[in-house]
């Protein structure tokens, strides 16, 4: 029936119509995951302003539907319904240009399923949260439209089966990030932050694009799975180059050093944006990219070391900065940077499943923490400086207790999610021989526990600040649309570790993801150590837990817990005790001066260079072009003086011409 209506319909549409109850039916649902969000975007963008107060309804419902379909697809993928290596579906031929063929296709395997869980669940909860958070904002129809567009882009990124599709979605996600960070565009700092995010992303994207071009040139195909087999046959230098360039893109998108500068500034956007894009989904795109490209990276061990080094360096750098930041969202932003560093460190040492585990766990508890912070900000009437908070734990209990769960999860205390994922990363780093990664990672674990409890202590515990006391009676818990997502996120933050991380050494998640990473694991770590709870693995677990506990204890001592107030004097005495700590305090407060360095290099020096080139363009290039014109005009003006208008002059001209002609004729004829 449908074929007659749409004769040139995409093959999948015909398949659905022709065989509605065929095997592999679930794969036909996958394009819906893209259609629903983009339809929501189109609808809200076109009609949202007119709908007014209920503009959130259509996008929210469509995202809930997307989540439901995603869960069906995930179940099918993880239970083996798509086969061991996943299933794909080709929608249509995007670029049929002779030798250059690119298909628009989608591909679902176990890795995709894990990402789908995170993206759709947190996306749905953020949509619900935004209903309450953006309730008083006149531009919220735009917000929901952008959120839907973002969901579309992120899902396309995760589902795409061609490098070009992934790249297009990559850019689209960056665009949505720009639109959402700069949502309150009349605010200058927001507009600047949006620009910064987009431009820094672009720097990474240059590398990514070059990597894709290199893949095309060396293998002749842009299909991801096909390219893996062909890349394996190339020479090591090319493989390393491809891996390095692809990693560049990941560095930009996932805000690793040196392209980390955009993420803290991105906190100018509304808190749901920070939760969705800059904690749970977009920044994970880089991790997903490297995990998806693991066959390439496994063949380039040198690049893997670089990945691990940059990852763990970012982790400790960001953790150090989080020690002294006072804006609650900035602390969480640096925390995100740090945890992303962990994920890249895991990818770099070859613990791919651990990285994905941490990606999922982090998505949940960081999303929880961001949404919770948004609830706090709402409660204290848009105050974001933690020094102006305090003593709130009894006033906003749901927010407090869910953030408490999130903090313990990120600190890595068992049995919550962070413990399992972080410990797996650290354990595998140690077992694969990357002791330096393990050591730095352990220090970062201590720091993480410390600064997260510092956030809790300053925000919720101890004596209320003057600002809080001033509005004490007006502080209330947020509406159900905001607290329900918090509760719903606290549950996986607590339990997903046990659900996916047990049994130790052969976790559920590892078994799920085995087909995706098996080849690389074989290549990198051919010897398998059985897990020894009573042996070295158990010892490593104890060390991780001890590290987290140490961080928490020190933070409790300095910043208080529940009714017990922190001690500001103790903190000040510590930071001011000697030159070294004073320097560290200043350094971390100024974000290790990276923003100033960038400003110096690119704005000041780059500005001078640009000015010089502009001078050259104005004077030399434009001068030449204008000079030619001026020459013509002046020549004309000069020649015009022959036209005197006097007949006698013209007659004289004739006479002279006659003499010249006659003379030359005589002279030549005489020869």
């Amino acid at each position, binding site marked *: 029936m449908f074929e007659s209506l749409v004769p040139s319909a995409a093959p999948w549409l015909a398949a659905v119509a022709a065989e509605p109850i065929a095997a592999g039916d679930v794969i036909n649902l996958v394009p819906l995951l893209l259609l629903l969000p983009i339809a929501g975007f189109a609808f809200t963008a076109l009609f949202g302003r007119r709908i007014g107060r209920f503009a959130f309804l259509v996008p929210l419902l469509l995202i809930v539907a997307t989540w439901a379909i995603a869960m069906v697809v995930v179940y099918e993928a993880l239970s083996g319904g798509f086969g061991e290596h996943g299933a794909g579906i080709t929608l249509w031929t995007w670029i049929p240009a002779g030798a250059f063929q690119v298909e628009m296709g989608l591909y679902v395997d176990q890795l995709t399923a894990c990402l789908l869980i995170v993206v759709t669940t947190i996306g749905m909860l953020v949509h619900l949260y935004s209903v309450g958070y953006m309730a008083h904002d006149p531009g919220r129809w735009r917000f929901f439209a952008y959120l839907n567009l973002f969901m579309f882009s992120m899902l396309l990124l995760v589902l795409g089966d061609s490098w070009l599709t992934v790249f297009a979605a990559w850019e689209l996600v960056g665009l949505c990030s720009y639109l959402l960070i700069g949502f309150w565009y009349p605010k200058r700092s927001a507009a600047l932050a949006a620009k910064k995010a987009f431009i820094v992303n672009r720097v990474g994207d240059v590398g990514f694009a070059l990597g894709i071009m290199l893949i095309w040139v060396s293998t002749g195909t842009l299909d991801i799975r096909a390219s893996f087999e062909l890349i394996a046959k190339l020479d090591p230098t090319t493989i390393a180059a491809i891996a390095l360039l692809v990693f560049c893109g990941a560095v930009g998108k996932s805000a690793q050093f040196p392209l980390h500068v955009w993420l803290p500034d991105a906190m100018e956007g509304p808190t749901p944006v920070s939760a969705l894009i800059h904690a749970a989904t977009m920044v994970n795109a880089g991790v997903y990219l490297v995990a998806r490209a693991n066959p390439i990276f496994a063949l380039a061990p040198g690049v893997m070391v670089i990945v691990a080094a940059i990852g763990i360096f970012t982790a400790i750098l960001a953790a150090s900065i989080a020690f002294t930041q006072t804006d609650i969202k900035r602390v969480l932003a640096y925390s995100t940077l740090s945890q992303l560093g962990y994920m890249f460190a895991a990818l770099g040492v070859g613990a791919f499943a651990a990285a994905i585990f941490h990606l999922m766990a982090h998505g949940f508890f960081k999303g929880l923490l961001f949404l919770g912070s948004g609830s706090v900000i709402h409660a204290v009437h848009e105050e974001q400086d933690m020094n102006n908070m305090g003593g709130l734990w009894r006033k906003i209990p749901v927010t407090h207790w869910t953030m408490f769960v999130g903090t313990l999860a990120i600190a890595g205390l068992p049995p919550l999610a962070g413990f399992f994922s972080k410990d797996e990363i650290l354990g595998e780093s140690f077992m694969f021989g990357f002791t330096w990664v393990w050591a730095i990672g352990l220090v970062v674990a201590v720091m993480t526990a410390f600064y997260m409890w510092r956030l809790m202590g300053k925000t919720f515990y101890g004596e209320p600040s003057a600002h809080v006391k001033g509005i004490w009676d007006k502080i209330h818990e947020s509406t159900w649309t905001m607290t329900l997502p918090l509760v719903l996120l606290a549950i996986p933050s607590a339990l997903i570790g046990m659900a996916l991380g047990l049994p130790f050494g052969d976790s559920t998640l590892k078994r799920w993801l085995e087909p995706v990473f098996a080849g690389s694991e074989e290549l990198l770590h051919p010897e398998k150590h059985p897990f020894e709870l009573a042996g070295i693995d158990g010892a490593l677990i104890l060390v991780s837990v001890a590290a987290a506990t140490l961080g928490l204890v020190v933070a409790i001592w300095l910043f208080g817990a529940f009714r017990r107030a922190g001690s500001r004097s103790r903190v000040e005495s510590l930071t001011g005790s000697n030159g070294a700590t004073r320097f560290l305090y200043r350094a971390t407060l100024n974000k290790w001066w990276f923003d100033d360095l960038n400003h110096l290099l690119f704005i000041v020096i780059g500005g001078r260079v640009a000015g010089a080139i502009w001078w050259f363009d104005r004077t030399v290039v434009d001068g030449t072009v204008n000079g030619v014109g001026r020459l013509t005009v002046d020549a004309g003006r000069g020649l015009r003086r022959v*036209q*005197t*208008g*006097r*007949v*006698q002059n013209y*007659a004289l001209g004739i*006479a002279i011409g006659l003499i010249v002609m006659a003379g030359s004729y005589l002279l030549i004829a005489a020869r």
Partner: protein
Amino acid sequence: MSQSLDAYLVLAGILFAIGSFGFLARRNAISMLMSIELMLNAVNLAIVAFGAFVPELNVDASVIALMVMAVAAAEATVGLAIVMAIYRNRRTPLVDEYDAMRQ
């Protein structure tokens, strides 16, 4: 009568040169017309001189000279009429001042 043709031709040449100079250098339009007449007469002299010294050309030379004179008269008339028309318009006979076509 001089025995060589050259004398008459030299005289004709000198007259023509004087007439050319006058045409190119005089400011008054009437003077220019007079110079043109002088040039035509010089040519006439040259033709008649040829007729006198070359027996075969005797008859033709006279006819040609007569034609030239007639044409000169007609052309002088027309030229004078134009000068008078311009004079009525511009109030000056000086060709320097006729510069409406000047760039």
